[in-house]
């Protein structure tokens, strides 16, 4: 994937980050501090004196049909990784209760962020439906995750419209809107392209827009992106659980 900064967007601001990698990379999340652990690959193997390792290996190979020596296999993210995670661009917008909400309000939690509009019949409800399943899949961990939708149609998407739309999915999903300029600024910061399209629909103009969901970690870093239709709720849950470790 090559999400270039969009040349047709007025260049008032540059996006704060480079696009994520096309495919997910391996991240070795288990630093190998102990030699024994490195050789045997088991978490508790660091307690085995190195000289007894050959004995342990023989016994292990005889008995261990169940022991998966893959206990420290590096986790492979289902989403798209950002090569060089930067601080997620801040914003302050208006939520469905007319409150001013800033990204920094959620520091310490994971934030899922996507840009859509309420008249969108396809990608946006698909994302929100996945989020609903994701929230369930996370179980207890859902307390550490915030779900935020920012509109790319501020002219039609008032706070009431956002609230009503999100109520179809989950009472705690946050819907943000603002002035046209505020929305344009945050979209540019996040490298999100959007444009009105008059295609002769009876529903009025449609909005073509970037459909990635961004994942901001508990340190406020933009770390991952997911595509709608491609990643299932369970796969996103696995990614988030990994980030919460």
């Amino acid at each position, binding site marked *: 994937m090559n999400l270039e900064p969009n040349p047709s967007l007025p260049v008032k601001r540059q996006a704060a980050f480079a696009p994520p990698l096309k495919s997910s990379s391996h991240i070795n999340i288990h630093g190998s501090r102990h030699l024994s652990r490195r050789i045997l690959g088991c978490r508790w193997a660091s307690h085995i004196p190195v000289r007894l390792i050959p004995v342990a290996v023989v016994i292990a190979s005889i008995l261990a049909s169940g022991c998966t020596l893959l206990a420290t296999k590096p986790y492979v993210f289902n989403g798209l990784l950002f090569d060089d995670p930067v601080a997620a661009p801040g914003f302050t917008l208006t939520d469905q209760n007319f409150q001013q909400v800033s990204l920094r309000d959620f520091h310490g939690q994971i934030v899922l962020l996507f840009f859509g509009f309420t008249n969108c*019949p396809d990608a946006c409800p698909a994302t929100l439906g996945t989020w609903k399943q994701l929230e369930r*899949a996370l179980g207890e961990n859902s307390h550490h995750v915030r779900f935020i939708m920012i509109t790319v149609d501020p002219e039609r998407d008032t706070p009431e419209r956002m609230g009503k739309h999100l109520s179809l999915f989950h009472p705690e999903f946050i819907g943000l809107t603002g002035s046209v300029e505020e929305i344009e600024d945050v979209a540019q910061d996040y490298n999100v392209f959007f444009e009105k399209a008059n295609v002769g*629909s009876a529903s009025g103009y449609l909005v073509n827009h970037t459909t990635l969901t961004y994942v901001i970690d508990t340190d406020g870093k933009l770390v991952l992106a997911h595509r709608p239709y491609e990643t299932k709720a369970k796969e996103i*849950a696995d990614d988030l659980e990994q980030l919460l470790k």
Partner: protein
Amino acid sequence: MLIVTLTMLASCTPSTTNTHANSGAMVVRPDRDMSEPRTALGSALSHGELHIQDAWARPAFRRDNSAVYLTLRNNGIQAERLVGATTKIAAVVEIHEVSMQDDVMHMRPAIGGVVIPANGHVDLSPGRYHLMLVDLNLDIKDGSYIPLTLHFQHSGEFHMNVSVVQAE
């Protein structure tokens, strides 16, 4: 040593958490006269050589829009074309085509409708095509059914009820 090794072998097995999303049972609560054939996910209706499968609609509020998805299977030797659809519960139904370019979603009316090739099928599914119901005149809720008439180029009209389902 053996005991220690066995204990460690037991610890080696990575713990797996079973976090299956609860897919939820779809509640079927017909709320109108069921004289038209119905579909629910996993079932199919026939219209001549055509089979209409897995039709479902998104819940939505009155005055808003919704989307209907379905699979059209053509067992005939002649290609068919879905040229339109109508419903009494919305002002207009439009066939839309969705395409993704560099993660930007583009949506536009499907000019000429959707072709269902002979001995083939077409999926009206998220990210591909959908029937957009514009300006609903009532709320449509998860578990209910909505009437829909499909218009085909060769085989004419087909009336059906489509189930409204919340989850993907």
